[in-house]
């Protein structure tokens, strides 16, 4: 039994694709079987289209990569009109990842999505322009505001995606739960930096970027486990998942579902392979994802 129910969503298996690593979903049609996925989380959407950052936007690091895409996207309206129809008829859940620079931005994006998708994932790792650029996701009060606002703007299930760049993830978990989030996904990328020694310049045009990939897995598993100690809503584990075993670490630590991110770049069929591997494990061990969730014996 690999199907899970999460915040009212029925997923055929616990494996989703992570936002920003799977485009708008349809790009993967030639490469993998989308129907074998629990859900697809699409690229972060903003109110207006965004051009993103200048290049270089990515750099490889030991067992990981830094990215500074700058949240380039077509905007919520174009997504609903042009991108979403391409997934029509495909039997999996579609989750929209949204972000903004003000609380109002977030609300408006949520409204415009209407019920075109199955759920909304709020990316709170964005600088709050009104608050002088402090990131929504590192201040529990600001996080509370965003999540409450989005909740009041949609009837869809709301997942809040936490930033790992905090001293105590449990404080953030409590804040967004109080704001009414239906589920929590974690972690987003960790802020990092790479320097081109010969040029004495940052490799990325934006100086710092977000670290993802296997390198961050131990940190992500730790944060999911810490979150699980206090969370009442379901958790979705993210960070460096490449294999089914990686995913199972998160599930055993307390996640009801997982997202596969950077691994999609290593192999566009990664997420499906993770889903198949979990199914095999569950079958062999005569267990279920439900039973495995939070089964860590400490």
């Amino acid at each position, binding site marked *: 039994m690999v199907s899970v129910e999460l915040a009212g969503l029925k997923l055929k298996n616990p494996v989703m694709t992570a936002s920003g690593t799977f485009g708008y979903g349809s790009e993967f049609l030639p490469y993998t079987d989308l129907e074998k996925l629990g859900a697809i989380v699409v690229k972060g959407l903003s109110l207006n289209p965004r*051009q993103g950052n200048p290049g*270089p936007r990515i750099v490889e690091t030991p067992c990981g*990569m830094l990215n500074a895409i700058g949240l380039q996207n077509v905007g919520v309206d174009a997504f609903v009109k042009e991108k979403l129809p391409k997934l029509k008829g495909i039997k999996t859940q579609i989750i929209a990842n949204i972000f903004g620079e003000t609380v109002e931005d977030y609300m408006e994006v949520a409204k415009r999505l209407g019920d075109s998708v199955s759920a909304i994932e709020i990316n709170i790792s964005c600088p709050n322009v009104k608050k002088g650029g402090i990131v929504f996701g590192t201040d529990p009060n600001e996080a509370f505001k965003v999540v409450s606002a989005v909740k009041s703007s949609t009837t869809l299930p709301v997942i809040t995606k936490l930033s790992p760049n905090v001293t105590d993830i449990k404080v953030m978990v409590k804040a967004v739960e109080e704001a009414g989030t239906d589920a929590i996904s974690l972690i987003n990328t960790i802020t990092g930096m790479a320097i081109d020694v010969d040029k004495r310049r940052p490799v990325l045009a934006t100086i710092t970027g977000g670290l993802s990939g296997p390198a961050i897995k131990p940190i992500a598993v730790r944060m999911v486990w810490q979150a699980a100690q206090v969370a009442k809503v379901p958790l979705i584990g993210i960070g460096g998942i490449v294999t089914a075993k990686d995913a199972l670490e998160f599930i055993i630590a307390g996640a009801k579902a997982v997202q596969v991110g*950077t691994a999609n*770049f290593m192999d566009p*069929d990664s997420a499906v392979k993770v889903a198949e591997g979990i199914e095999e494990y569950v079958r062999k061990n005569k267990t279920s994802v439900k039973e495995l969730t939070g089964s860590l014996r400490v």
Partner: protein
Amino acid sequence: MQSVSSKILYNEEVLPRYFRLGLQWKTPAIVPGHFLMVRVSGSLDPLLRRPFGVYKVLGSKWKSVFRGTGVELLYQVVGRGTKILSEKRAGESVDILGPLGNGFPDPERKQNPIMIAGGMGIVPLRLLAEKLKRGVVLFGARGSSEAGIVKGFRGLGCRVKVATEDGSIGRRGLVTGLLKEEITPDSPDSVVYACGPVGMLKEAARIAQAEGVKCHVSLERSMACGIGVCLGCAVKTRAREEFKRYKMVCSDGPVFDSKEIDWEAL
């Protein structure tokens, strides 16, 4: 078009640090300019695939596309990934994903194709020359040994001219000097295909545009996915609408009309 494990037929050092890599692969339709994303090892480090152009399609002649039993890559060892690749031997396998990207558009029937390459930029242009069987290949090499790469090109049915920085073979100086001579106001209607270092591409584009000649450039950027989803390989274009300004080298390119590119930002 999934990622496939492909057997290495040969992996030979043809010049110091330059390797020909033959891969067994029942290829889908390939056109010149297509590239592959190659996973150089099963380890998590290096993590990402590496992009390489298609140099030859094995067991295939041009027939509206190439479709063969394998491909040959030509690569230079520049860093960790290519180092690891160079240590692979025949019989081992590597994972490949492709063919990816958009190839070079055809010249018009009466147009004279000028193919200009610097260094490894020769890779997609060799396949283009094999397809077109006419025109001229201008190759900028660091020295006579690198220049040797184009020795076999004459059999492809095109003219070949070489420039080396040290003048050890062919013309002394930059390959763009040769381009200037090929595109003169009284030469026939031309179209330029260029691949190589940014400086060379910029200059080739400038020369072509100054003469009102169309120039197709194949660009390189660091890539993570190769299929247009990570948005990592962005290149700035002159698109009027701001949010359409960044195009992806992997999926919108790697071949672009030189006029489209914002050369200042490159």
